[in-house]
């Protein structure tokens, strides 16, 4: 199997890394792993609190794309593909471990909760801090599936169709999840603002 001599432009975006990787560029492959590892790890933690098992799953996902690089489509967005593979793999492992032992795999300990950094460098006023805290609270009250869609859409900049692939649901269902989340947020936002911004300005 031919491996191109490692040479990968530093400014490449993920799409280019993906394409170069599919052509056998190992340096770009490593760079792609480096770029997406944190996201995969954080996403995976939502489904399992077993770090070692999770790292194994991530490893398998990456090794698999390297093995299958000849047949993979170079136009699919890598992030979505990797996240979808990881999600499937974790669930597969989880199902297997159900029949074996459960000690290594505690089922979905973490979830898609968000947190609000207490004294954020960029928050200028107490009101905004409170707003951020209310948003945090609101998001954490949403149903899990909505939280997952929001996690992917608003914190990781994935498109609707990509989210549909990752969550393995119809794109319309993604829209529905996001819409109902926003309906809740909008209703509460009005209340929050009217409570918080008594004297303030918008």
């Amino acid at each position, binding site marked *: 199997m031919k491996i191109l001599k*490692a040479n990968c432009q530093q400014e490449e975006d993920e799409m280019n890394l993906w394409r170069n990787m599919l052509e056998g560029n*190992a340096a770009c492959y490593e760079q792609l792993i480096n770029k997406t590892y944190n996201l995969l790890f954080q996403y995976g933690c939502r489904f399992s609190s077993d770090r070692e098992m999770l790292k194994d799953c991530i490893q398998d996902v990456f090794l698999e794309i390297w093995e299958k690089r000849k047949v993979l489509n170079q136009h699919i967005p890598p992030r979505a593909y990797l996240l979808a593979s990881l999600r499937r793999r974790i669930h597969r492992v989880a199902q297997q471990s159900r029949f074996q032992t459960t000690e290594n795999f505690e089922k979905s300990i973490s979830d898609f909760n968000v*947190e609000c950094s207490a004294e954020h460098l*960029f928050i200028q*006023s107490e009101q*905004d801090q409170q707003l*951020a805290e209310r948003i945090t609270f609101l*998001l954490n009250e949403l149903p899990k599936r909505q939280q997952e869609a929001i996690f992917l859409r608003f914190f990781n900049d994935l498109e609707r169709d990509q989210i549909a692939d990752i969550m393995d649901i119809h794109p319309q269902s993604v829209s529905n999840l996001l819409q109902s989340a926003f309906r809740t947020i909008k209703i509460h936002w009005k209340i929050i603002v009217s409570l918080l911004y008594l*004297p303030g*300005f918008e």
Partner: protein
Amino acid sequence: MDQYNNFKLEDFIWDAYFRKWVLHPTRETEESWHLWLENNPDKTELVLRAAGIVKAVAPVSIPLDETEKKLAISGIVSKMDSSAEEILHQPVSYFSKIWLRSAAVIMLLAGLGWILWTRNQQRQVDYKQLVAHAEEQLVEKINHTRNPLLIRLPDGSTVKLSPGGRISFPAKSRLTREVYLSGEAFFDITRDSSRPFFVYANEVVTKVLGTSFSVRSYSGEKQVSVSVRTGKVAVFTRRDAEMTHKQRSKELTGVVIEPNQQIVVSRESVKMIKSLVSSPQIIADGTVNYNFEFDDVPASEVFAALRRAYGIDSRYDSEMMNDCPVTARLTDLPLYEKLDLVCKAINATYERTDASIIIKGNGCGQAANP
């Protein structure tokens, strides 16, 4: 990018393209947002706030340190089917780019912050600048006539605008009530303690909950004055370091002035001087009809009645004044003439201090006491 021109805080917070710029900036998002901000400098503060909130709320992050990550990655790389020769471990500084980006974002925000800061620190601000920086769409009324012009604001408050004055206010009354004034006007504000009413006049900010008061502020004049007819107002200046706090606090903080008091702010030194207005008015709330016909009433009661009617703090020795009977018809006289008459009758004098009246007398009690 035109769709962003009317965006409010929450619209920015949940806009995918805005979040992309804040959370995962790329050259393309940097360029288009910078360009947009250059064309919409008045949105800078709003964008900064939204960016702050977007950055503050993040998914709970499970710690993964660099060593652990590097180890995992080299584990993957070592397991690649690598029959052929490979040169993988070229020293590539993956992180320099991330650092550069973070640095760029910090510089950008710091720069914007500095612009905002300097803008707040500007020496003198006038009506034109204030209106230009308003966030909402404003309606402007100018009194070209020779008579006061009565204007009704969206929240039901009324403004009597003196000739030559101009006033701008948001077309729709939403969360806030704010007007910008040049010239002189008398305000009668409907009470709404959840939405204080702000008058921005040059460097001076007047905050009220529901009162009537007047503001005089001409761009050409060296002073801005605020005087209160009823209720309480808080006055502070744009240069006040705690301005934002005072603006947002639910209480009236700053220099609070009460009925028949006024404050004169010198625009150059931003010094505030509080005093009584030159002709105090009775605080009429429509329910009480004040009676200033006194027949053999102790002077202390007369002073108390005046204090209630004009809302002006007056200090006197009530025991001494109890012994001084007063008979007087004071109804149609201005306050200071009333005081002159009463004081003359009981052989006392009064002094106006910054915001109160001090009455000094020796009492009339010697004869009455056994």
